[in-house]
């Protein structure tokens, strides 16, 4: 059945509008202005899925999330470097680089997410030789004495390099201060998701998405404050509870779904109770400790408290169990797998996770998208059928 169109509750509208403008800021004007207001300061970009933005912050620079260009950018030069069977994200990122939008960045961190982003880091070096480029290999061996130690050493090296780029060396103190800022930000995002689960009608998915996504361009503290402000208004909103299917979305941790896709899913009758888009803003559940060696701490928390993301090699059964736990925690009735076309990490993981939840009797459905998908009938059809099935059963 068709669900009624969800309209934004009025009081939050200005915040939502601002966030949407940030989403559509494809020239990184926001960052340019920040730099103008902070003479001499620099900005460092980072790609999905997760990068240590704390280090960038500690070096006195602005961390900028480069999450692709949604469906708004015409891709010409980016496509010139990619075959049709490669996902869309690197095309738009390259387009942004080649059309000069990313000139405002003084460097980019490429985390170890998949072969595509890994290779993109090398391409970046060739195409933009004057810029700082760093590949951030994350530990796949989770033993603290092995992967953890390697990672702590690497974080130290990255911090030193960032210090050189900014001219402000990273100290234990500045890093701890950055931890505190990011801890507060993560808590705000976790709280926002908790509100969404409690009252999905007060926090439409598209708004939640926009709000978190704003963190890609805003200074961290400002972002935290924005989320808090939104939550106050949203909680007080008069939106009426509505009976829709409750689903958990998985698979969009890297290339981002277009906003209209998120809207389409909600309109076809699904409340998205949990998702893994923009997962970096909720990467740790616990706070980064403010005592002790911060590098060691960050490495330790990384190997013990990272989410069960398809980019990580985890022990047998962990991913399925983690998803089942999330489903339970958020009161979801089913899982909607939503992966970008040609995304190996997401798509290769999917059948294993599906088998796990199927065994637990949890229904699921799956669809594919690209960040520039402009056609939603098929998706509406699939999501709608899924919602119908959940509600009728």
């Amino acid at each position, binding site marked *: 059945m068709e669900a009624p169109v969800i309209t934004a509750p009025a009081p939050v509208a200005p915040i939502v509008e601002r966030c949407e403008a940030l989403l559509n800021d494809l020239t990184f004007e926001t960052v340019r202005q920040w730099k103008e207001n902070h003479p001499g300061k620099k900005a460092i970009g980072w790609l999905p899925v997760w990068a240590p933005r704390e280090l960038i912050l500690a070096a006195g620079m602005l961390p900028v999330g480069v999450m692709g260009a949604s469906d708004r950018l015409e891709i010409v030069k980016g496509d010139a470097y990619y075959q049709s069977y490669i996902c869309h994200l690197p095309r738009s990122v390259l387009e942004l680089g080649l059309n000069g939008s990313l000139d405002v960045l003084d460097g980019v961190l490429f985390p170890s997410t998949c072969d595509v982003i890994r290779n993109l880091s090398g391409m970046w070096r060739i195409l933009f030789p004057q810029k700082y480029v760093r590949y951030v290999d994350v530990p796949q061996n989770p033993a603290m004495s092995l992967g953890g130690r390697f990672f702590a050493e690497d974080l130290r090296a990255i911090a030193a390099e960032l210090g050189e780029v900014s001219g402000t060396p990273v100290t234990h103190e500045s890093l701890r201060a950055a931890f505190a800022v990011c801890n507060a930000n993560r808590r705000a995002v976790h709280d926002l998701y908790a509100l969404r689960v409690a009252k999905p009608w007060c926090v439409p998915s598209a708004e939640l998405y926009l709000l978190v996504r704003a963190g890609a361009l805003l200074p961290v503290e400002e972002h935290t404050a924005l989320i808090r402000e939104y939550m106050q208004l949203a909680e007080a909103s008069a939106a009426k509870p509505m009976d829709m299917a409750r689903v958990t979305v998985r698979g969009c941790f890297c290339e981002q779904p277009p906003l209209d896709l998120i809207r389409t899913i909600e309109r076809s009758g699904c409340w998205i109770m949990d998702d893994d888009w923009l997962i970096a803003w909720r990467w740790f559940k616990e706070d980064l400790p403010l005592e002790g060696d911060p590098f060691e701490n960050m490495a330790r928390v990384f190997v013990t408290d990272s989410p069960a993301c398809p980019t990580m090699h985890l022990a047998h059964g962990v991913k399925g169990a983690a998803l089942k736990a999330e489903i339970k925690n958020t009161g979801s009735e089913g899982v909607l797998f939503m992966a970008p076309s040609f995304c190996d990490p997401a798509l290769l993981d999917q059948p294993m996770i599906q088998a796990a939840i199927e065994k637990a009797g949890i229904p699921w459905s799956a669809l594919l998208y690209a960040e520039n998908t402009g056609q939603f*009938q098929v998706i509406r059809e699939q999501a709608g059928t899924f919602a*119908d*099935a959940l509600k009728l059963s």
Partner: protein
Amino acid sequence: MTRQITCGIDVGSSAVKCVLLEDGEGARRVLAKVTERLRHRNVTEVAAIVRDRALAEAGLSAEDLAYVASTGEGEQVHFRTGHFFGMTTHARGAVELVPAARACLDVGALHTRAIVFDERGRVLSHRMTSQCASGSGQFLENIGRYLGVALEEIGSLSCSSSKPEKCSSICAVLAETDVINMVSRGLAVEDILCGIHQSMAGRFMKLLQSAGATGTVAITGGLASDTGLLRALREEGAKQGAKVELVAHADAIHAGALGAALWGGHRLRKLASMGVAAVQ
């Protein structure tokens, strides 16, 4: 309650289908079923045409309809009462036509879906072909046009083939050129068609199996009447050792419209029980 008449309209990408259903107390009865192919015509117009034809066939008028349920690309049916999603209606229609079926394969003009459902026609799981449009009805239709073969003949021609020629292209556009190439190499029309059916069948069986279909599977959608595809599907199923029995009901093309009419009736009763009248 007296006579309750519901209308299901299935707007596909190549044709609009309409079913009128009498669905009150007592037995259900199909009063009329009509299909009209779009062929460059305005959808909204064709939707009205099929409804009017169906009404005429049943000797009724628009006021007699208690609920008009659209499905498929139903936004374009301005006179609808409500809309249901395509797989929801195909599942319901399939179980109505073939009561033993617990799955159906809906082969339409652009997409093919494998749907698994329960005894009441509620969807349990489904799979769809990917965004690439190869191996769909539209493709077969284009090829038919190239070969000068009418849709209705495709099936029997294909069945007469003894040495099918494999067609491997994934893209429908390139496949078309492949086919032209085959003709120029002097291959027989029936062998080409059969080869296409076989490659479609391979994809579709895969779809069915990955959706978890077993037992009786109803074929719905326009291509259900394509005996060549049916044969290829059965052969492919046997080859793969799939535990499915394929059934194509004569009214299979109307499964979506029928399902919509049925869900419409269901909804109407629910609304009535809540004391609300369906508003148009």
